[in-house]
């Protein structure tokens, strides 16, 4: 098990454009599953290649268990990367593909053969030894690529978008396979994704990257409960934002004043954020304002209302039964649960 530390890691491909990876500091915990999350082009693959030793950083350092590994060539790092598009070697059989790493390590042929068979069992493709890569479907190729990496028992496993090329049902299967293998073998694993849901479901911790810069490194629920910026909250989606001024545990907005003990800032211009599930309709009390129902949809397990409060509009997700209680155009009290309000610094402050 290996702890991976990135410090000030930077990659500049081209002097004229901004760095692909910019001053990245990250402590990737030993034996855990960490997600590198961010929109396309934010530097995820570049970061992975640098950890694997396939790309030289412009500056900064990478260390495994405290020792810098920058001078160690990729084949000796013990960090194996699985590329997004599988890259099975087309001239080799499946068995030769999976056994490749062991062959490079001069393991004898008989042992390679038994371990290849074990790996095929592990990824649930027994008997595939003699097939050629092009005879396999995308999902099967993905599993072979995973087996080919796992067989060398890497200290660090780097998976670049392991699920993005698979259709929905295969994705669930693959997700479970990765989780199961990772837990069983306890390999420090970093996986890349641009899908926040995937990161939340699979990862122990998520590192969120925008434009090569680390935004937040946290456990999954923190991104919903305490996102550090409006951009982060927006990336995870579905939140209401109301601009205002924060002071002494209260935020004053154009529609009223709300108690808000939880906050990412000390005071000043700020944004009130609240998830639709924490907005209740009907019962007046503390943190309530009057609103008018503009529209609603009945989804079955829940109902979603759009409510106008003065010059702004918020979304509320409620018990489906409430559909019968309110009509569009009704005036209703709208309550924000003060413990669910999260105050963030204003969007502009964050470049």
């Amino acid at each position, binding site marked *: 098990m290996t702890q991976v530390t990135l410090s000030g890691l930077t990659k500049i491909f081209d002097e004229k454009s901004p760095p692909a990876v910019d001053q990245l500091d990250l402590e990737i915990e030993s034996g855990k599953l960490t997600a590198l999350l961010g929109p396309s082009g934010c530097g995820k693959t570049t970061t992975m*290649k640098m950890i*694997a*030793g*396939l790309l030289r950083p412009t500056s900064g350092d990478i260390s495994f268990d405290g020792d810098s590994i920058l001078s160690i*060539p*990729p*084949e000796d790092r013990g*960090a*194996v*990367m699985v*590329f997004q*598009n599988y*890259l099975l*070697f087309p*001239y080799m059989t499946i068995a030769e593909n999976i056994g*490749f*790493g062991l062959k*490079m*390590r001069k393991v004898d042929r008989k042992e390679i053969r038994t371990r290849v068979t074990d790996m095929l069992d592990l990824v649930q493709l027994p008997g*595939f030894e003699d*097939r*050629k890569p*092009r*005879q*396999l*479907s995308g999902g*099967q190729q993905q599993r072979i690529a995973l087996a*080919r*990496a796992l067989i*060398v028992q890497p200290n660090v496993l780097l998976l670049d978008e392991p699920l993005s090329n698979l259709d929905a049902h295969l994705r669930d299967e693959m997700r479970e396979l990765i989780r199961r293998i990772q837990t069983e073998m306890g390999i420090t694993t970093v996986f890349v994704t641009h899908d926040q849901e995937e990161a939340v479901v699979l990862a122990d911790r998520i590192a969120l990257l925008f434009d090569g810069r680390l935004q937040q490194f946290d456990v999954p629920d923190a991104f919903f409960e305490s996102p550090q910026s409006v951009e982060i909250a927006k990336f995870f989606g579905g939140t209401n934002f109301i601009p205002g001024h924060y002071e002494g545990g209260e935020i004053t907005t154009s529609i009223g004043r709300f108690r808000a003990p939880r906050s990412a800032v000390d005071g000043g211009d700020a944004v009130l954020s609240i998830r639709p599930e924490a907005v209740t309709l009907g019962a007046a009390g503390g943190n309530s304002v009057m609103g008018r129902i503009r529209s609603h949809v009945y989804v079955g397990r829940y109902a979603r209302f759009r409510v106008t409060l003065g010059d702004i509009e918020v979304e509320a997700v409620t018990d489906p039964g409430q559909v019968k209680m309110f009509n569009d155009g009704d005036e209703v009290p709208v309550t924000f649960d003060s413990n669910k309000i999260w105050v963030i610094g204003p969007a502009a402050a964050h470049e």
Partner: protein
Amino acid sequence: MADTRIEPTAAGAGGVAPEDKERRFSWRITGRWVGITGLLAFLVAPIVPLFIWSISFRWFYPAILPTEYSARAWTEVITPHNDVLGVAWNTALIALVVTALSILLGVPAGRALGLYEFRGKRLVEWMILAPIIVPGLAVVLGIHVLFIRAGLSNSIPGVILVHLVPTLPYMTLVMSGVFANYDTDFELQARSLGASRWATQRLITLPAIFPGVVVGALFAFIISWSQYVLTLLIGGGQVQTLPLLLFGFVRSDPAIAGALSVVFILPAVIVLLLSSRYLSGDNAAVGGIGNI
């Protein structure tokens, strides 16, 4: 290559319906046959009249075939005092060294051109194309002076070097096409799995570019093998090759010229046939030439 295609596809891997597959398979075979027959006809047909010339003794209009035959030309070709075999060997040796050097220099050059963007790339491309576009004679007249100063004229090393002027551009062009369609991530993947630089070149890069290398090498070999002007100028008559010998006989003795032509063309045909599978079908090794 057809061999991997005719294996049954993986169960559930979304293969083609059986009857459909068979139809496609037979088309493939037919296509192959047409290709090979065409190639043979195209390459072998010109040899036939040459061969007839070489064994004719009397052949005047309006006879369609010679009226008298003779083995004189072939005896001349084989007798040691003309040293045809020695010259053929010389020609082959020069062509082989030229081919080897073309591979050694052309593969890395093609890789650089096909894979990377760098400042002045356009200029480099033009400089590589120049010897193909500009008449060889013009290039060589310039080079000749340099070669005389460097003591390379009238020598085999000099001839080999000057043959590289037309062969290297071809090799580089073919390889840049190959590399333009090549994904270097395969090499990175191999390194990450534990392969050294050298093992990666041997096990990953080479198999991927091999068809292209074969095609480029073929170009290089044939260009060198059939070179006349460059050899004459730089070799100064001291370096004898088959084309020089052949041209000497064309006016003086058509029968011997015919026999020599057969000796001259055969190796090229054999090389071409041996590598025909790299020139046709899915390999499409030269498909990327258009990229430059």
